[in-house]
Structure formats: structure tokens, C-alpha cells
């Protein structure tokens, strides 16, 4: 993690900038009446908990352990820390959370990470190498296949590198745009799929025609060449490429307080 000096004497790390930008997107969705977020553990959970403190209306955090509307004071290490259950509006069983809440279409945004992401927003969290004799066996898909299929939209948060942002995933654990335009529709998937990819370098969104993830914004101080070097496909930039707003003092101090609690 390198330090980027932003406004004044405030220095935010690239990870902090990534997390803050993801939280902003969740805040915008909540303001637009789409607050219900199915949260994976790790970076998604950190960003979702930051957004819950920064925005009113706040995102509603749903965890696959069965917690609906969790309001943890400290960041959970796992998706089932006691804090998540004790601060939830409701706690339901695992079969119920997937069937009644996710599958039935009650989730606005699924928030995922992964080991590999490809240009069509497909995610691999299963194996590196071949499935039968992998070079690296990863934990597996978990809840992601159905989150990616059934959530209204999907946001991905991942640190960007050539190893992780690839032309084609070694294994498709969850479906973005599959093989390209129209693939989700042909399979009858209900959700819109990946709409936002927030990285430590910038923000990508699928191209409206090709569905290929395209850079919409760079974080302050990031050069196009860095993104090209950290992307395994011939990455393109939108014509009106933006620069994300630098973290505010309020965002940064809130994030650090969340992580220190």
C-alpha cells in the first residue's frame, strides 16, 4: 500500500481510497432508494460499514450468516461474528436468507470480492489452474453464484493487478456478463450483473455495448499507464475520464475509526 497525499496534510492509502469510493457508491444507491446490500466479508464488509456510518439513508447490511440489518460497532472478522447477530433487525436461518431474501429478489446490490476478475466481470474464487489439478485451491464460490445472479446489481471491490484482472477467469465461480453481451439474458438471470468495479486505482464500469469493463475514473494521482500495467486485458478508458474526489477528512477519520474499533 503506497501513500497518496491528497488534500492538505491528509494522507490516504490506496486501500483507503478504494474503500471510501465503494462506500460512496453504496451511499448513492441508498439515496436512490436501493439500500439493501448483501455483504461479503473483508473489503466489502469494511466499505459497507463505512457507508452505514457516513450516509443517511444508510445501506441495510445483509450477511449470508442470516443477519438482516446488522449495525456492528466493530468490524467483524467473519460473516458470523456475534456482533452481527446482536445488532441485527432480524436473524434468520441460512436456508431462509438464500431462499426468501436473495433468491426472491429482495437484495438491491450484491457486494463481492474474489481472486480473479475478467473483462466481462466474471469472478473466480475457486481454483487457479485447472479444476481437476489446480495449482492453487481457493476457498470456493460460497454464496457468490446466487448473489451474482439474483441481486439487483453487483459491485466488486478488488485490488488491481495483472494476476487478478485477467482476460478470462481460470474458473467461473460467479457470472458477470459471461461470454459477452446477451449472455445473462439468454440464461434468464434476473439481476443486472456487475455495474461497478472499485479498485485501488480507479473505478470501472461495463461498456454499454460490449459489456467489457472500462475505466470510468482514476483515483487522484493515478496515471493511465498504471491501470494498463495492472490489467490483463486491453483495457479502455471512457472519453470523459473522471478523477475521483479525494477522500475528505470526515471520510478518512470515520474509516479509521471503523477499523480501529
Amino acid at each position, binding site marked *: 500500500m503506497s501513500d497518496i497525499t491528497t488534500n492538505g496534510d491528509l494522507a490516504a492509502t490506496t486501500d483507503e481510497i478504494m474503500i471510501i469510493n465503494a462506500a460512496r457508491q453504496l451511499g448513492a444507491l441508498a439515496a436512490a432508494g436501493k439500500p439493501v446490500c448483501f455483504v461479503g466479508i473483508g473489503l466489502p464488509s469494511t466499505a459497507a460499514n463505512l457507508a452505514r456510518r457516513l450516509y443517511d439513508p444508510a445501506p441495510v447490511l445483509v450477511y449470508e450468516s442470516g443477519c438482516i440489518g446488522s449495525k456492528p460497532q466493530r468490524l467483524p*472478522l467473519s460473516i458470523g461474528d456475534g456482533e452481527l447477530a446482536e445488532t441485527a433487525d432480524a436473524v434468520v436461518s*441460512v436456508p431462509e436468507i*438464500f*431462499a426468501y431474501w436473495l433468491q426472491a429478489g429482495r437484495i438491491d446490490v450484491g457486494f463481492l470480492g474474489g481472486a480473479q476478475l475478467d473483462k466481462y466481470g466474471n469472478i473466480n474464487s475457486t481454483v487457479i489452474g485447472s479444476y481437476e489439478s489446480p495449482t492453487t*485451491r481457493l476457498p470456493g464460490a460460497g454464496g457468490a453464484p446466487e448473489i451474482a445472479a439474483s441481486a439487483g446489481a453487483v459491485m466488486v471491490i478488488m485490488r488491481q493487478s495483472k494476476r487478478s484482472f485477467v482476460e478470462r477467469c481460470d474458473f467461473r465461480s460467479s457470472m458477470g456478463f459471461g461470454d459477452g453481451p446477451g449472455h445473462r439474458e439468454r440464461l434468464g438471470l434476473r439481476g443486472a450483473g456487475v455495474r461497478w468495479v472499485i479498485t485501488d486505482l480507479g473505478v470501472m464500469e461495463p461498456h454499454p455495448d460490449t459489456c467489457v469493463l472500462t475505466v470510468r475514473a482514476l483515483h487522484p494521482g493515478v496515471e493511465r499507464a498504471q491501470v494498463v500495467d495492472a490489467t490483463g486485458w486491453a483495457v479502455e478508458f471512457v472519453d470523459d475520464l473522471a478523477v475521483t474526489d479525494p477522500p475528505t477528512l470526515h471520510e478518512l477519520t470515520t474509516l479509521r475509526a471503523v477499523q480501529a474499533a
Partner: protein
Amino acid sequence: MAEILSLRDAVAACVHDGDTIALEGFTHLIPHAAGHEIIRQHRRNLHLVRMTPDMVYDQLIGSGCATKLTFSWGGNPGVGSLQRFRDAVENGWPHPLEIEEHSHAGMATRYAAGAAGLPFGVLRGYVGTGLPEYTDTIKGIECPFTGERLTAVPALNPDVSIVHAQRADRDGNVQIAGLVGVQKEAVLAAKRSIVTVEELVDHLEPVPNSVVLPTWVVTAVCHVPGGAHPSFAMGFSDRDNRFYKDWDAISKDRDSFTAWIDANIHGTADHAAYLDRIGVTVR
């Protein structure tokens, strides 16, 4: 009616070589003590089933108890990979591990079908992923009413399901509160079941929203305080996140893993001795 047994006697009576067994718990109430007792009793050729195999399955796999794993996510939550699971899949140590891989939604559907006595369950799942290509127990099905393409997965009916709970009464009625995971479905789907509990009481006080397993659906109840450690039992303990982080280094290589199992599992008579040895005090 459930029998109140020692964990040693319950495992000896219920868990046999070659059985299909599920130790369930979704982060909360993971029956670690029962897994350790299975290792102590040198069970072999087990088919392990679990949505989220984590540390205790890493220990069972690394100890050579398992030949097959049916699962949807095998990792150390919040920490990273399961080193012994990886070694078994990538290198066949201590011997090859066959895997049957699903998603969480699919596994939950399979348990629910098992509990309901149905041959299969149905969901909108797996579509567009690589899983159906490698997992025979995922099949497409057409809704007879709407024609919608859906996914069918067969019921899971383990020989034995094992869960941990807050308490049971002396007749063997079990009460589970908080994150209840898939424990009810796992117990009801199984041919036999073992429930380890934090406390045995004369009378169960009703707790809002709790799951109650009547004694007549449970095979054995064992009083094992701290039996979930380093997982937790709401009302009794907190998750020992430090232990989960430490496990990564302990399990990283075969020798340090084996030394840990020999000293702490084979080197202790039961769970109370184990907790004493690793310095954990039970409330």
C-alpha cells in the same frame, strides 16, 4: 429419545468408518470438540459434508480422517485459505480428497430437502458458473407449471449430523439461539445426530426465536462446555479471532500441523483437558 452420553461414548456409538457425517455451524456454534474426538478415535474414510468447512475440517482432513468432502466454501473466515484442505486437494496429502462442490444456496437447499424427506430440492442457482460441469449433483429441471428452467440438487441425508448448542434439558431437548445456520435442517436430515451443549439444565426456559430440537429427533446429547471453541456460543463465549489467525501458521506445514494434533488432540483425554492445555477458560 436422546441419550445423555459422554462425547467419547457418543462418537464411539454414532460415528463409524466410512460414514457420511456433517458437523454444521455457520461461524457460530461450530462443534469443534466433536471433531477433535473423531480425530482421537482415528475414524477413517469419512465423507465430510459442510457448507463452510473451516478449521475443524482442516484438522480432520489433515489427520487423515476423510476421503471425500462435499462443501460450498472451504476457508479460514477472515484469514484466508485452509492449508490442510489445500494440501489434500493440490498434493494428495495425507491422501487424495475427492470433492463435491456446490454453492451455499445449493447446500442449504440440499439440507432442507433432506429434512423434508424429499428426494431433491429446487432453486435458481449455479446458472452460468463452472460448477455444473464438474459436480454431478447439479442438474437442470423445468418447472411443470411455468416452464422456467431451474436447478435441482439431491437431498443431503448424512449418516450422522453433529451440532453444538447453548443448552439441553436432562431429557435431551435441545435449544439453539442466535445464528442458527443450517443446524436444524442438518439434524432433521440425518439418520443419527449428536448435539454437544454448553449447559445441561433441569428445565428449558423459552428464548424468543430459538430453535428447539425435541429429544425424540436427537440421538445423543453431550455436556461439553466450550465445545465450540474457537467458534462461539452466544451468551457463553465470544469468537476467538486470535486463534483463527494463529491457525494459519500452525497449519502451514505438515510437520507443525502434525505436532500440534499429536500434542493437543491425541495428547489430551477429552475436551476439558484440551481447553486446559491450550489455556482457554470456560465461562
